[in-house]
């Protein structure tokens, strides 16, 4: 399948981050068209397009919009730009290369839901991207796309850009709203869902950067056009953030349904150093590991779920044959231990415990019961914690135990990591 770039089609254009350049590529035509439409028609159009949220859960965007209770104002749109999952760097790319495309998407989504004040919650470490968006907002305001009575069409919209302070949990939508309100970033109890009671207690939609970036294209080309791209249940394209042991890591926009093999082998140039592929992880740090036998699975929410993992936020971490899977899992568990907000017991204590056990594997002191203990701790966290952070901390390590239990056994019997040596050779 050939790539049909959609979001990145103009990324080769120089100075695309500038308003004038962006407009020359057709920028803001979608928003202008939007202003001629009825908001309800716009919601219907996005519903019909089959656009699903690109933040990780893949929830249909149009449906999300339609959950807002009728007649309750003000209502807010929050664009989730707190991309912090290890392995994910697509939103960063979109914001840096074409901040106006993101902003235009935000304006369209705002108009669709009847919001007059939108927020962008951007990961604190994304400084250049923050700058790009800030400039874009200034330019758009001067050009009349933002502010009171935009383009003389009687619609008021403004955007507030807010930087996070370095907590992964703030990418969880309710924690993001709590953080945005100035409180400690921690997830909130649901229900009430943000659509009903979100930011400052008002109806709120939280959409991912890549999700909104799709909107100008859907508005300009129509729902049917978008629906025709990708798979029946996964319209459009996605940006895949490929990293790890490949020859050409980077962001690749792929039509949904494209086999994973094509991404890794053709676009990524295959596994580096002529090594064999051992495993790969789609989605991001949370997601379950997949094996070479899954290479022909399509890049699509449903297909990847069927294979036993999740497409998540579009990461593709490639691991070659020298990878110690126990160590890989250890690194991810440590990440979750570090990022657990501490609100609920299973995640706070369970990630700490798992991290300790993984350290023991690495240090050669693991005990025979430790593998099953890890599985049991995982069982007691997954589905029991307050928000998905805790759940997700268990998915990768449990899937690694499922497929690579023998490596854990080896760590126990050899009192340490059997891959240390081969890694050293590889580096040399």
């Amino acid at each position, binding site marked *: 399948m050939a790539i049909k770039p959609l979001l990145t089609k103009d990324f080769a254009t120089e100075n695309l981050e500038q308003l004038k350049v962006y407009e020359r590529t057709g920028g803001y035509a979608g928003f202008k068209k939007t202003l001629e439409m009825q908001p309800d028609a716009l919601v219907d159009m996005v519903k019909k397009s089959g656009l699903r949220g690109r933040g990780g859960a893949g929830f249909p965007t149009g449906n999300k919009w339609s959950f807002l209770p009728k007649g309750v104002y003000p209502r807010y749109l929050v664009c989730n730009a707190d991309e912090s999952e290890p392995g994910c760097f697509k939103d960063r790319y979109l914001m840096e290369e074409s901040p106006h495309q993101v902003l235009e998407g935000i304006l369209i989504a705002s108009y669709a839901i009847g919001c007059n004040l939108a927020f962008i919650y951007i990961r604190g470490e994304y400084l250049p991207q923050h700058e790009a968006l800030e400039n874009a907002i200034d330019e758009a305001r001067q050009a009349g796309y933002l502010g009171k009575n935009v383009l003389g069409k009687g619609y008021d919209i403004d955007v507030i850009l807010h930087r996070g302070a370095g907590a992964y949990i703030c990418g969880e939508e309710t924690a993001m709203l709590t953080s945005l309100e100035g409180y400690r970033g921690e997830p909130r109890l649901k229900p009430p869902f943000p659509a009903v009671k979100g930011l400052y207690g008002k109806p709120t939609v939280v959409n991912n950067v890549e999700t909104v970036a799709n909107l100008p294209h859907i508005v300009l080309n129509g729902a049917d056009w978008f629906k025709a791209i990708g798979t029946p249940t996964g319209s459009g394209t996605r940006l895949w953030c490929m990293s790890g042991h490949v020859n050409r890591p980077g962001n690749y926009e792929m039509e949904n349904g494209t086999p994973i093999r094509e991404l890794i082998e053709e676009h990524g140039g295959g596994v580096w150093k002529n090594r064999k592929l051992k495993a790969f992880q789609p989605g991001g740090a949370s997601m379950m590991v997949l094996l070479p036998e899954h290479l022909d699975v399509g890049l699509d929410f449903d297909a990847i779920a069927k294979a036993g993992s999740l497409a998540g936020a579009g990461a593709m971490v490639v691991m070659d044959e020298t990878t110690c899977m126990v160590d890989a899992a250890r690194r991810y568990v440590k990440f979750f231990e570090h990022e657990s907000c501490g609100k609920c*017991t299973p995640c706070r204590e369970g990630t700490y415990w798992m991290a300790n056990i993984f350290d023991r594997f690495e240090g050669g002191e693991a005990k025979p019961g430790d593998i099953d203990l890890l599985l049991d701790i995982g069982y007691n966290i997954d589905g029991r914690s307050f928000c998905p952070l805790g759940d997700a901390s268990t998915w990768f390590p449990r899937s690694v135990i499922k497929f690579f239990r023998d490596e854990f056994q080896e760590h126990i019997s050899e009192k340490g990591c059997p891959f240390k040596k081969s890694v050293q050779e590889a580096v040399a």
Partner: protein
Amino acid sequence: MAAVQTDQVTLTVNGQSVTVPKGTLILDAAKKVGIDIPIFCSHPKMAPVAVCRMCLVEVEKMPKLQPACAVYVADGMVVKTTTEQVGKYQKGVLEFLLINHPLDCPICDKGGECPLQDQTYQYGPGASRFDFQKAHFDKAVPLSDKILLDRERCILCWRCTRFSEEISGERELALIQRGVHTIIGTFNDEPAQSNYQGNWTEICPVGALTSRQYRFISRPWDLDRTASVCPGCSMGCNIQIDARNNRIGRFQSRENLAVDDGWLCDFGRYSFPNFQRTGQDRPQIRRNGTLEEVSYDEAIAFAADGLKQAGRQVAGWASPADSNEEFFLFRRLFREVFESPNLDHRAGTLVDAEPDDMALAIEDIERCDQVVVLGGQEVIDAAPVLHLRLFKSQRKGVNVANVGASEVAEAVAGVRPDCTAVGILATEANKQAAVDLQRKLSRKVKGSVRRLIVTTGPNGRGAKDLGILPHLGPGYASLNGQEGKGRPEWPGAGVKALYVHASSALHGFVPNDAESMWLPGLPLVIFHRFRASPLDELAHVILPGRAFTEKNGTVTNMEGRVQRIRSGIDAEAIRDDWRVFQEIANHLGASWNYESVDQITADLLRAVPPYAALNQGARVLWSEPS
């Protein structure tokens, strides 16, 4: 067929059908049919947070286990709390909670009354599979001069932080750091200022927050627990006196929703050292200028003889911390035996007393649409738990205005005319302003306007109700020309003998300048008191009496609620105060024959029928409030 609209929903919990109002939590629905779901973070007075995850249960058609403390019931819901999955998980969450808990139960003040300990026994695993170094935190961190925090014991249930936010509104406690490093603390580690910190120790489900006063004092099973009333102020908060080896270890709250709503202030809770008996105390009489120890009988005879000589020129002061039974007998002693009308319980300014002062019940504050706190912080200082009621009311939408005692005009201007129920709170010192405000508001608003005057002392209301006043009899009855002199008039009124009775060092007889000049010249000063004070030096007779916490009887709080107090300490060597009154009376020709406090209570109820409210735990109603 039209569907029947109902606000009730029916669900089953472990197969038992239960019907509850919409908006009930699974936890409470289960409780209704006697099914206990273990909890740590959930608290009936706080919004659900579902952080501890102890209460997860199975709900049919829901893929994950659900927190019973945060999920509301729905019609037809099928809840299971004892399945294998739930049981396995309960073991799991307790194992999690304990991995970084020090398990120092043997030296923990909470051990024996600790929900974490109890639930570990009931639901937890017998052993832990955690064999790493526990995460270490600071122990015995002083949060203030009252509270210590053990951060290792803390299980981060958020109860104390939510109390600080939702109950007292002071927001002094917060969560700091994140993940396994999360701790509870104050801003910048500055000492907590709250007057409600003791409540943190009671709601803490582990031994993380402890009272410095109670540290290492007792194991819970060694405590003798006595239901009584707090001696701190006229709020009348219900307490439990916890004593070990006949010494008070602590005061704990004893929820009375109408009065204290389950809370105590620190002033009251930590007041108990004032009631701790120190050493022996014997009756003394002054002979040739020096006090010498004598028997009760001798001291009583000495006092009675002196009183006889003074004739009707006797004045009596009973502290507003005495019991109603003591007031009843003290008044009879003066009116019937000494035939003296010079009775008082007040300290300084003479404040008129009338039933309208208690027309507003404490719990009615929540039902007002406007409350004016005349004097602001002065009122809260006089009855601190009122703040919690006011804050709760505010959260429910009641408009609470704090105004200065002299700002009656401003207070009137701030009240909307369409209010349906207005409450006024003021201290005794500002009573006249409160009456003035009430009159003006009654003309302005269409609804009712009622006031509640915060009386002084834990039984200041009882003293007024029962006529420990020079100008009013029991039930605020007129004395028809038989009025006596009040305390400020005593110096220079030809008084020959003064009888002071005091059950609390917090509300004792503290002479003012004029009294200090007057007292040394008095022929007879009888000081019948719980604890020595400078007045001992001026007394001719010292009669040791019992403390508020050492006697049985009743007291009446500011709103007129008559409640029982019970002796939490056995003060056998100290003769009952009422017995001393009786013996003095009988020395002077009376023939009282009370054998117990209950008999006095019965007599009092006959003499003052509205006090039958005692039997319902209700408020005394003298008449319809005007």
